[in-house]
């Protein structure tokens, strides 16, 4: 699915795929409170946290849907706050509630997304056809999306995110509402992107997914990163070497709540 001719931005290897420093966002209260976070290229990073921890707010600031009150965001060396258009060019965002156009077909939706990202029509069409086939949407490629199930809509949104060949994919609860087969397809697609050198950041409440797929896991609570590392490192931080991610996660969050 990844275009072998894709041109890597200069200095990619020298930079983090994503680097957040001192990120702050306040609404009624601090939603994100001085967050530092780094993700490497070719890494699958899972961001975990209880409801209201600041996961979605953090990711929305990264993709430009929210403006931080303070801090810096760097995407493959590009200052996303100073040059958001350049940063957006190499990113893709998928939310838990797929927002697509009911009156467009998947094929037309992908044509629109390719147009927004100014992808060459020939390349975009080839990618679109591959993605639609791979995600099992080929038979529905020319039907309007208005009758689609949530799983199908999520797949269309995923195809839209991949059609411009992003180097950093950010997903907010992408597996919510998907059946087992669809969830597996999505996970396979994401793993392949990581193998090809892309970076994936995903929030999820399904800890088994994070446990199986993520190279590193971050735990966020109260707007701050309270734990970060591989599964083994997280277990060590939780002080429970032999337990599951679920136990480690609950221990870490409970400890943070008690400290607060």
């Amino acid at each position: 699915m990844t275009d072998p001719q894709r041109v890597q931005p200069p200095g990619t290897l020298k930079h983090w795929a994503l680097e957040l420093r001192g990120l702050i966002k306040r609404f009624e209260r601090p939603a994100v409170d001085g967050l530092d976070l780094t993700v490497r290229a070719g890494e699958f990073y899972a961001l975990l946290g209880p409801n209201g921890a600041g996961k979605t707010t953090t990711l929305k600031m990264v993709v430009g849907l929210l403006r931080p009150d303070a801090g810096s965001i760097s995407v493959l060396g590009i200052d996303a706050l100073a040059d958001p258009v350049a940063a957006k060019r190499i990113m893709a965002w998928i939310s838990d509630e797929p927002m697509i156009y009911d009156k467009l077909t998947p094929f037309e939706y992908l044509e629109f997304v390719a147009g927004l990202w100014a992808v060459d029509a020939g390349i975009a069409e080839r990618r679109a056809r591959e993605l639609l086939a791979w995600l099992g949407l080929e038979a529905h490629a020319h039907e309007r999306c208005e009758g689609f199930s949530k799983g199908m809509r999520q797949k269309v949104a995923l195809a839209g995110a991949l059609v411009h060949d992003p180097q950093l994919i950010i997903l907010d609860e992408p597996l919510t509402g998907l059946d087992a087969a669809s969830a597996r397809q999505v996970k396979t697609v994401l793993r392949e992107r990581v193998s090809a050198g892309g970076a994936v950041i995903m929030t999820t409440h399904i800890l088994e997914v994070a446990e199986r797929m993520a190279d590193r896991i971050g735990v966020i609570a109260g707007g701050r990163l309270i734990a970060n590392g591989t599964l083994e490192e997280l277990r060590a931080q939780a002080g429970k070497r032999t337990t599951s991610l679920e136990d480690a996660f609950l221990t870490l969050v409970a400890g943070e709540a008690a400290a607060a």
Partner: protein
Amino acid sequence: MNQPGTLTWFARHECRLAWRDWLAMMTAGRRRRLSTVFAALIVFAAGIHGLAYAVVGRFAERGIHPDKAALVIITSSLLLFWSLLMSQAMESVTRAFYARSDLDLILTSPAAARRVFAVRIATMALSIVAMALLLASPFINMLTALGGTRWLGTYAVVAALGFTAAACAVALTVAMFRTIGPRRTRFVAQVVAAVIGAAFVIGLQVAGILSYGTLSRVEILQSDALEALAPDIGSIVYWPARAVLGEYAALVAVLVVGLALFAGAVLVFSSRFGDHAIAAAGVSHGGERRRATSARFRTSTPAWALRHKEWRLLVRDPWLMSQTLMQILYLAPPALLLWRSFGEGDAVLVLVPVLVMAAGQLAGGLAWLATSGEDAPDLVATAPVSARSLLAAKVEAVMGAIAIVFAPFVTGLAFFSAYHAAVAMIGISVAAASASQVQLWFRHQAKRSHFRRRQISSRMATFAEAFSSIMWAAAAALAAAGTWLAVIPAVIALGILAGARWLSPRQSV
């Protein structure tokens, strides 16, 4: 006293929802604005009473003799008012069927669905009656103050009209459900509602043009020809008009008929309302298949992709198309006037402001769809395109649609007078750009299906859009007449826009 599951308990629940819906509509969801809204309403009510005095003052002071001419005019006015209420009532009934909100909860609860829907139909009717009374009250108040308390009976006539409209709307929508099915009813009912609201006005204008060569509706209503065609003075058709003029027997009859129709609708239809709501919920949208083999991606820029998407979505949604282009229906009489009066200067003077006004209103609706009604805001906001370029592309989409709609009119005008065509073109462009800009300043994310309720997001945007269009239309009319006085409404329009920008939450755009 208020046992759960009883009629009064459901009524209390429905009234609370209706009140909060109204509050949200007036305050755009910000409770802090409540005092400002009430102050604005008082000022507005005072202004409307002044307008009402100008319209009905002389009749109240002079008195109206119930001859055939007077009865025809009053009956026609009541019919016009009723058509507007009917349009609103059909919209409410359709929304009750198709907007899911709490229907799942109600239909899965052990409460008697018949009872719940009886209360729901009653609440809809009461909201229609309340709206009717609010609209009519300035005129009735002025008539009562100047002409005596006998005019107070008009309140009862208006309430009866509201109840009748609600009953007819329920009956008509249910009849559609049974004949054309739930899939088509949604679209057809909403189009019918809009057409009912417009048809009577347009019909009177067309008749006026064909008979007298004028857009004025009053001319045709006061004509001898209509009076000759109208039923005899003793006809039952005139009872509502007689009730307005203070005849107590007619008043009682009108009120009884209105309430009886409404009670009948509740009794007959409340038991099946739940079934129809379930049928509506089961409507599959069934994705329409497009041609597959020849489809190819076209090389495009982000701006082209955005413009093309906006036009494609509009063309593919017949309901939205009908709603946005409904304003074009109002252009039918001016078009007829242009055709009938080709070569006559007066007709052009009437046409230019009508075109400008229509362009402003149409552009406002289209701009709302393109900005507030964006279905995938996250996708567009995360695209590598600057916010300014995004907005520019969307404004281009709106202005392109305006150009397509109004170009034939301006071309027609140009055959008669190049000067007036130029005035119309400039006026159309400026009014459309102003209305679009207002929608950009006040944009507020919403579903496209909420198009008809777009005013909820901001009363200020609605007023600014309407009054700027009116002022640009006035400026165009004066410019078409060749007077420099055109500058005055133009300056007022700019002032309205400046005020809207100052009050808008997005002053940076």
